[in-house]
């Protein structure tokens, strides 16, 4: 009962007008900052991933090319050896 009696009287809170809560300038800066962060974030990650994939592709294609060349050289050497043995 004592605790209840010592409670302060509730004071009605008036609704805060939006212009008092948010400054137009702050909201504008936040909006444009969000746009730039989203655009740069997407471009940065997409670009990084594209570069990484293209580097990987170049490495694989280089390996394949070297392998084809080695394969052709080996085949040519085998052919020469076979011909000389035939003679």
């Amino acid at each position, binding site marked *: 009962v004592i605790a209840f009696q010592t409670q302060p009287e509730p004071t009605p809170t008036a609704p805060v*007008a*939006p*212009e008092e*809560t*948010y400054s*137009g*300038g702050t*909201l*504008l800066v*936040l*909006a*444009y900052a*969000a*746009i730039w962060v*989203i*655009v740069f974030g*997407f*471009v940065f990650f*997409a*670009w990084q*991933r*594209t570069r990484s*994939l*293209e580097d*990987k*592709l170049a490495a*694989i*294609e280089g*390996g*394949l090319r070297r*392998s*084809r060349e080695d*394969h052709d050289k080996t085949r040519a050497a085998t052919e020469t050896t076979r011909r000389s043995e035939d003679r």
Partner: protein
Amino acid sequence: VDSLFGGLTLLTAAALVGSLLFIAFVVPTEATMGIVQKIFYFHVPSAYAMYLGAAVCMVGSIGYLASGKQVWDSAARAGAEVAVVMGLMVLITGPLWAAKAWGVFWTWDPRLTTSLLSVLVYVAYVVLRTFTGGGDAEKKFAAALGILGAANLPIIHLSVRKWGGTHPQVITGKGGGLTDPNMKLGLLFGFAAFTLLTVLLVWLRVRQDRAQARIDEALDEASALGLVDD
């Protein structure tokens, strides 16, 4: 192709920065709402760019279902991702403007609700493509979702006229509010910058998907030659 892509990147960056400077220093501040109204010059173009991304997704999806070619699927996926990126911008900048104009960040207004629904459809598309395998069934299911997502776009556009709501109709309401010619020019620059940005982002994403497809083909060839393990 690389120089063309580089040129487009520079042009897009210049258009975005130029548009931003024009909006900041040339476009006059609107008398009723004040400086917060300037959000409009990027909010509306980002909504338009979301439509563009969604249209690319729809065309790619139809193309993939009709032909089964990988390039259409890559375009559809790129379009969906761009639609999500642009949709996020719309859903962030809109509530920031509303906080000042309406006193609340969000209200279940028809246009806001249908826009949110549309972004969620494309988020579902992206989640589906990211976390499921790249099989033909998944691609076809995603293509159906890409077409379904586009069906919501006219509803967003017509929602204000059909069901009312509090969302303003600046463009469809014959440009009401854009009294100064520089305001119209600012919006036009915004549209141009976001068109370039959409083309750039779709291209970047398609390029990524094509590189991945070429890697898969090269790995198959390497595997056939016995150079790598399966």
